[in-house]
């Protein structure tokens, strides 16, 4: 790991801790502070992206994957509770690594919000989807991410975590006492959505992670991005 990379990782970790701390310290200015800190958590990744030497292919890869993640709802229009975006981001991260994973996730969030209208949730979504990609990429070489059950647990947990973090932004800002009942009732209210998200992650990861891996690995070699430490998933031979 390069020096800058490590710096950025620690930097974003500190930012997240600060975010949690802020919740307890600055009662009055929760909201603006939380936005500031979320921003700080996202910015290092983009600084690194700006500085890195990248070929046109790699930039287009990020853009294309981000666009794919953003439009992936379209084929599932008849199924309102199905959320394939996280799955696409996880697969992108497993194939192309943590940084690409973060970028794909957060750019997908920005771009879909450009079409649906930006709001105070934009940075939170950028953070959540970015983090799904980032963590998936970090863990891609661990032994449980190479197993189907491991990936499923990962997807399931993030399904809930995503909803919980997204609940945070208005809970922090708009309730005067952050008591457990407040959290609990918000999480109960969003339980159905979070469960649907978690289950669709599991469903997609179980059935399609092999196919996606084959598609993306093929792309990787075509783009000339193939390096030896590769493919967390032993892609099964096509029938």
């Amino acid at each position, binding site marked *: 790991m390069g020096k800058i990379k490590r710096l950025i990782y620690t930097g974003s970790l500190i930012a997240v801790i600060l975010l949690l701390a802020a919740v307890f310290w600055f009662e009055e200015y929760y909201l603006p502070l939380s936005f500031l800190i979320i921003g700080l958590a996202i910015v290092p990744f983009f600084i690194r992206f700006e500085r890195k030497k990248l070929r046109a292919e790699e930039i287009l890869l990020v853009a*294309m994957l981000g666009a794919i993640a953003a439009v992936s709802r379209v*084929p599932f229009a008849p*199924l309102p509770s199905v959320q*394939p975006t996280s799955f696409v981001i996880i697969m992108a991260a497993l194939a192309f690594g943590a940084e690409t994973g973060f970028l794909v996730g957060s750019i997908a969030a920005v771009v879909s919000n450009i079409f649906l209208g*930006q709001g105070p949730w934009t940075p939170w979504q950028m953070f959540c989807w970015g983090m799904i990609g980032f963590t998936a990429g970090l863990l891609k070489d661990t032994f449980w991410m190479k197993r189907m059950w491991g990936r499923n647990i990962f997807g399931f947990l993030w399904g809930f975590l995503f909803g919980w973090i997204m609940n945070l932004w208005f809970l922090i800002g708009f309730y005067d006492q952050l008591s457990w009942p407040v959290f609990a009732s918000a999480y109960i209210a969003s339980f159905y959505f979070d469960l649907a998200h978690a289950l669709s992650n599991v469903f*997609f990861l179980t059935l399609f992670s092999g196919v996606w891996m084959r598609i993306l690995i093929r792309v990787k070699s075509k783009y000339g991005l193939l390096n030896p430490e590769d493919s967390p998933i032993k892609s099964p031979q096509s029938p």
Partner: protein
Amino acid sequence: MGRADMVYGFSGLHPRLCLLYFIVLLAACMMFQHPVYLLASLLCIIVLLFSLDGGRALKKVIKGYLLIALIISISNPLFSSRGATILFYMMDRPVTLEAIAYGAIFALSLLNILLAFVAFNLVVTPDKLLYLLTPYAPRTAFVITVTLRFVPLLTRRLQQIMTIQKVMGYLQPGGSKKHLMREGMETMHTLVGWSLEEALQTAGSMRARGYGIGRRSSGTAYRMDRRDRLVLWIMTVTGLNIVIGALFGVNHYEVYPRLQGWQWSVQLAIHLLSYAVFLAIPLAMNGKEWLHWRFIKSNM
């Protein structure tokens, strides 16, 4: 998204000023809990929305936003029992006037923020946002632009693929959820393979036209004109006044332990006036435009 209906008036300002205005406005909506301030902001934002596109964007979202605001204002007193004025007991918990007021204030604040974002989307269009981002993060702005270009392209491709699936008899109406999810993913497979393959050609076309050989320049230039400088001056004066006042707690409003009464002071009057002037900037600009066109029409 895309082009706002009105490119004159406030939307015609230099994008940097528009962005600055919204940053201050949003910060004010988040931090000021004084009911008068909140109401003034709400009023201004609604009028601004009407002056921007005749209230179309507002109509689209208002129901949902009001519902969220309602939920917050009702649920706060249920969870919080702070405050001295107990109105009644519900399920053995005291419901206080202060908690209700707090809920209402924050619901109003949330409503302001959400609506301010609606106006933001109308004024600071994506291309302006990207223009502003470019000097600081050229590559990020570029990637977002390219992604924006791909989204309609991919949506159209998805529709074409789904058409074929339908003709081939794979997508049948009334299929099970699992079947639909499976076929949805098949659609994605076709799209992903195809689009990533073709993006390689896009890369070729980028390199052929010199992408990556040096620092990029910009073909779009917004220039600060006299009007921009005047507005900037007004914004700075009023904005600074607002910040200073806020730092000294002029407009501080206490809900707990007991609702604060109306305390009038000279400082508060000056401060409120500054805030009102600040809020009125876009309204005045759009209003002037509106009058101008009405005048022309009546003279024709």
